[in-house]
Structure formats: structure tokens, C-alpha cells
């Protein structure tokens, strides 16, 4: 293996035997032997995966739930052994598949610190030196002599995390479990990741959170149904990832539209239906159907409206939701923008409306919610929740949802010696 490679994975495949009935008694083993029934189904979790991870790299493993990424991580960690192929690890490796591995609820917090530390490779002496720091960082000094079962789950996670980040290892495997927890905890996690990036630690990061992947990783691979379908820079990987997610979404929405069947003048709530929004899509500047946009690219949106009854000068609007925070981040309509004469439409007409979105949005995944209402905004004719999704990537500012249009201006207003009283 070359010196600058931390992990080399070659043609790794893994098949699980899933028993029809759990075959944990000798009787059923005998019975199955005589019946010549295999008693299990084979599931291919990983098929012929090969890649290299360089030393000091922050490497992302991306994939949907059940795609096999956790299986891959467990193989890298040596918990599962591959059926074929090989994994070579160059250096000391610590897996964080889960925080607080080996925590025993019946032991005191103090005992658990030492036990968990030994699993990460620390001697008792080393742990004693770090003990005060760990407890202080976890902010649970008062509880250390209580049994762990009396801790709140937040306290347990904090304790586990503050032990875990002491681990000195050349290679770290981090599963997405680290990214759960409240906002304060996530901030701590991200601080820790930034620290890791500064050191020479190789980190393999498994997640499906675009934000943190894009923020920390340089390269990555995409796994879908056990196969590696993309490997390269994290941007490339994330783009292919959203492609497969979209394909799925499209199929789901098509199926839904078919199921809804023919247009009915009375909608589900029993109200008289005036208009029905159908088929919402996003386009780029050149008019190409598109869902993955670069930051700063012009995004326009088109939707078809089937008119069921005559309507006059309806208000047409759109709301954009940010998926990560599940909040509306932008909303506008023709009334706000002072467009009064939107037109008169007759029953049976099919119209296509086009709106353009402002270039405000930073990296992320967004939902579009188009709506059409009557002239006085007293009745919503139709409103289509999560009608379409689009992604934005490549912003230089991934820390917020929207970008300001003006540049930040810095002025130092006061300068003086802090020790002197002002």
C-alpha cells in the first residue's frame, strides 16, 4: 500500500443471510437440514466496492437509508468481515458507530468514564489525567457518583461525547449518530469537526445531511443499493445523490397524480373547486428543466393551472420552504408586488404560469408551494404543498439560509485599553 493511503478498500462484497425464522435452536437447525431448506434468504448489502482514502482526508460516505453505508462502515471498523475483497487500514482506527459504547446503566458515571476510555484505548492513568476535563466539558460534575441509569439522555450523550473527543487516533469513523442532538450539542460537534480538520486525522464521515457533508468533506462516495455509483469530489457526489433522490420523488408524485384520477369539480374538502394547480417544475435561465442549481443561478418556476370555473384577476403567489428548518424562507405574490390585472380565465382553460425566484438562497434543499387565490385574498382556490423540490449548492456562505445582497461593512468604533476603566 502506498504511504499516503489511510484506508484501501478493494472489491468488497457483503452478503447477509436473513433467516426466515430465527434459526437459533439446534432443533430448527436439524429440521432445516433434513428439509434441505436453506432456511434463509441472501441479501447482498454491498457489491464490489473499491476506493482509497488518503491520509488526512475528510471523506464522506453518502447514501439513502438502507443503501449499505452503515454496513460499509462496520466493515471498515472490523465489526463485520467482508465475504470477498479486502480492507487495508494503515494506522490506528477508532469507530464512533455510536456514542457511549459499553456504558453500563448500573455503574456510576465515574466508572463508566474509565470503562469507555479503556475501549478507546486509554490506560487508567491517562484517564485519571483527563478525568477533570471530561467532566467539566460534559457539565455534569455533581452527578459523577450517581448511577448512569439516573442520568437524563442528554447528560449521557454529553458525557459520552466528551470522552469520545479525547480519542487520539489516526483514523476516525463517524456515523451520522453524532449529528443528532440539540442545537447546542450540534455546535459542539461541528467545533470538534473543525478541530479535526486542522489536525492530520483521517475522518470517514457517514451522513445524509448535505449541509455538514459539504461543509467538512473534500471527497466522497455515493452508495445506492449496495453499489458504489459515484466517487469524486463531495460536490459531484452530492449532485448524483440529489439526482437519485429526485428520481424517487418524481416517481412517487407521478404515482400520486395517477391515483388521484380525473379532475373533479368538487375537491376533497367538499368545497367548490375553481382552479387546480398541476405539474410544478423548476427551470434554469435557458429554460431547461432542472432541479440542481448553482448558487446565484436564476431559478424560475412554472406551474399548470386547470381552471374549473371562471375566475377574475386571481392572486398568484409562491412560498419557498427550507427543508432543513421546515420554515418558509421566502414568500411573495402578485398582490404584494402590485400586479393587479392578472387576467380573466374561463372554465376548462389550462394555463401555464411562470414566476421567477430571487437569487437569495444559499445551499440547501427547498420546497416550492404555489398558490392561487381570489382577488380579495379571502378564498384560496388552490395551494399545493411541497409541490416541487430544488437544491442549491456552491455558495461561499453555507452558514445561513439566505445571503444578503449588500456587503458587510466593518468599522471599529472604539479602541482603548480594556484594563482601564472607561
Amino acid at each position, binding site marked *: 500500500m502506498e504511504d499516503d493511503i489511510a484506508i484501501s478498500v478493494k472489491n468488497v462484497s457483503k452478503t447477509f443471510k436473513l433467516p426466515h425464522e430465527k434459526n437459533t435452536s439446534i432443533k430448527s437447525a436439524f429440521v432445516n437440514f433434513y428439509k434441505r431448506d436453506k432456511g434463509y434468504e441472501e441479501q447482498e448489502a454491498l457489491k464490489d466496492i473499491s476506493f482509497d482514502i488518503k491520509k488526512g482526508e475528510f471523506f464522506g460516505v453518502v447514501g439513502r437509508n438502507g443503501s449499505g453505508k452503515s454496513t460499509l462502515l462496520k466493515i471498515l471498523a472490523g*465489526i463485520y*468481515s467482508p465475504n470477498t475483497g479486502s480492507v487495508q487500514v494503515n494506522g490506528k482506527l477508532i*469507530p464512533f458507530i455510536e456514542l457511549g*459504547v459499553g456504558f453500563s446503566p448500573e455503574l456510576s458515571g465515574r466508572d463508566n468514564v474509565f*470503562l469507555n476510555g*479503556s*475501549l478507546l484505548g486509554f490506560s487508567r492513568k491517562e484517564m485519571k489525567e483527563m478525568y477533570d476535563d471530561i467532566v467539566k466539558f460534559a457539565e455534569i460534575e455533581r452527578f459523577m457518583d450517581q448511577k448512569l441509569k439516573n442520568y437524563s439522555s442528554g447528560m449521557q450523550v454529553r458525557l459520552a461525547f466528551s470522552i469520545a473527543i479525547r480519542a487520539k487516533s489516526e483514523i476516525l469513523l463517524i456515523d451520522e449518530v453524532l449529528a443528532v442532538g440539540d442545537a447546542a450539542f450540534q455546535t459542539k460537534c461541528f467545533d470538534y469537526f473543525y478541530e479535526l480538520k486542522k489536525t492530520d486525522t483521517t475522518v470517514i464521515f457517514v451522513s445524509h445531511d448535505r449541509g455538514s457533508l459539504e461543509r467538512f468533506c473534500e471527497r466522497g462516495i455515493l452508495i445506492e443499493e449496495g453499489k458504489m455509483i459515484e466517487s469524486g469530489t463531495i460536490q459531484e457526489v452530492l449532485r448524483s445523490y440529489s439526482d437519485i433522490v429526485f428520481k424517487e420523488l418524481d416517481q412517487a408524485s407521478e404515482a400520486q397524480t395517477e391515483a388521484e384520477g380525473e379532475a373533479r369539480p368538487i375537491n376533497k374538502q367538499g368545497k367548490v373547486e375553481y382552479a387546480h394547480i398541476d405539474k410544478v417544475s423548476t427551470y434554469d435561465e435557458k429554460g431547461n428543466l432542472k432541479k440542481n442549481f448553482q448558487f446565484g443561478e436564476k431559478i424560475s418556476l412554472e406551474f399548470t393551472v386547470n381552471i374549473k370555473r371562471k375566475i377574475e384577476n386571481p392572486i398568484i403567489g409562491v412560498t419557498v420552504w427550507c427543508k432543513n428548518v421546515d420554515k418558509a424562507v421566502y414568500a411573495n405574490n402578485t398582490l404584494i408586488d402590485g400586479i393587479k390585472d392578472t387576467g380573466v380565465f374561463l372554465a376548462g382553460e389550462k394555463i401555464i404560469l411562470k414566476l421567477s425566484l430571487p437569487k437569495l438562497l444559499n445551499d440547501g434543499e427547498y420546497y416550492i408551494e404555489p398558490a392561487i387565490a381570489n382577488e380579495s385574498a379571502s378564498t384560496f382556490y388552490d395551494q399545493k404543498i411541497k409541490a416541487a423540490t430544488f437544491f442549491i449548492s456552491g455558495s461561499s456562505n453555507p452558514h445561513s439560509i439566505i445571503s444578503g445582497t449588500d456587503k458587510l461593512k466593518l468599522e471599529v468604533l472604539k479602541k482603548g485599553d480594556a484594563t482601564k476603566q472607561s
Partner: protein
Amino acid sequence: MFKRILSKQNRVLLSELVRTDFKLRYQDSVLGYAWSLLRPLLIFIILYIVFVKFLKVGAGTPHYAQYLLFGIVIWNFFLEMTLQSLGSIVGRGDLIRKIRIPRWIIVLSSSFSAVINFLLNLVIIAIFMAIGHIVPSHLVILLPLIFLEVYLFALGISFFLSAAFVKYRDISYIWEVIIQAGFYITPILYPLSRITNVTFQKLLILNPMAQALQDARYVLITKKTLISNHIFNGGWHQFIPYSIVALVLIIGISYFRKQSKYFGENI
């Protein structure tokens, strides 16, 4: 290979796991560690009343009380170690599924907590020997080797059982029955000399536990103990028990090694 097995990290982990086992065992009990000593003592008192006072099976064997107690202590060590190790891998499934540690450390750690208990019990034996004014023979220096034999025999069985238990949960019931049978075919409660049928006597002493038990009693308690060397008149048959121990250890370790690759997914 031994360097890898005894690496600093493995030693730290082993000691930490043994510590945890020990702490958890006497969790929430008022007398705590004292139970390690009290339990064999109380069991001994019961057996003493039944077998020495009422049934008088030990008549003719000097220091039969100590002879009996020593046998029970060694047998209990074997029993405790195999039963604890049997469930050790499954019991530590949370570790095995989530982190890579050498699996054998788990079995070894549960065997060590049995060893600690055994050493504490030997203190009781020493006290009773002092009470009975028993002076061990100079052969007592062989005692650690006999204990080692028992330990290795139990370890081989432990490796096999703990790995098999991952796949077949029936193992625990089967083993409980086997060990109950073992308790009676091993001359623990009765002196081997009371088996008058020579063929039976020879068969019984082929059991490594019987051989080790008799040897240990011979060197520590009384030279009147019937040992395999006497039974076989120094013939080659007396080495059969050792061969069984070696065979069990080899089979146990190799089965464990073969299976341990799949613990992560089978547990």
C-alpha cells in the same frame, strides 16, 4: 503474536472489563464483596452437615471436611467460569456490534472474575486447614500447575460454549444438564475409594476434573487421596486427562476463532 495479545491496549481493556464485571456482580447487595466468601462457606456448612454428620460418606478419609470443602471450591470455580463465559459474548453484544475489540478478551475477562473469586475462596480453605492443623506435603508446589490445568480445561470449554451460544441458544440448557451430571461423576461429595468397581474407578478418573481434584487434594489435604497415578500404577493411561484438556483447549479456541468473525452480525 503474544506481543499483540498482551499489548498495552488489550491489558487495559481486560482489567477494565474484569473490574466492571466484579462491580456489577455485587451491585445493590448490602454485604457486597463479602458474598464471594460467604456463599461457599454457607454451601459448605450445608454439605458438611449432610455428608459428614449424617451420611458419614467420608469415614476413613482423614480431614474429610476440608477434603470436601476443597473439592467444592475447585468445582465451583469450574462451574462458575464456564457458566459465566457461556453468556459472555452474547451479554456483551452491545460492544461487539459497535466497536472492534478482540473478542477473546471478553471471554478472558469473565474467566478472570471467576479466578478472582476462586482465589478468595482459597483463603477460606487456608483458614479451615489452620483450624484442622493440616500440614500440606512438600508436593504443594505442584498446586498452581493443577489449578492451571483446571483453568485451561474450563477456558477451552468456555471458548467453545460462548461461541456456540451466539448461534444456538439451547447451549445454555444443555450445558446446565451436562454440568449437573459432571457434578455427580466427579468425586466431589464422595471419596473415589468408595467406588469399589475398579473399571468404574478407572473410567471416572479419566475425567480431567476428577483427576485434577484428586491430585489437588493429594498434595494439599491428605496423602490418603486416591490419585490417577495410583489407579493406573504409573501407566500411560494417567496422561489421558491431560490430553483431553489439550484437545478441548485446541478445539475450543479454533472454533471460537472461526466463529468470532461473524459475531457482529449473528448476535
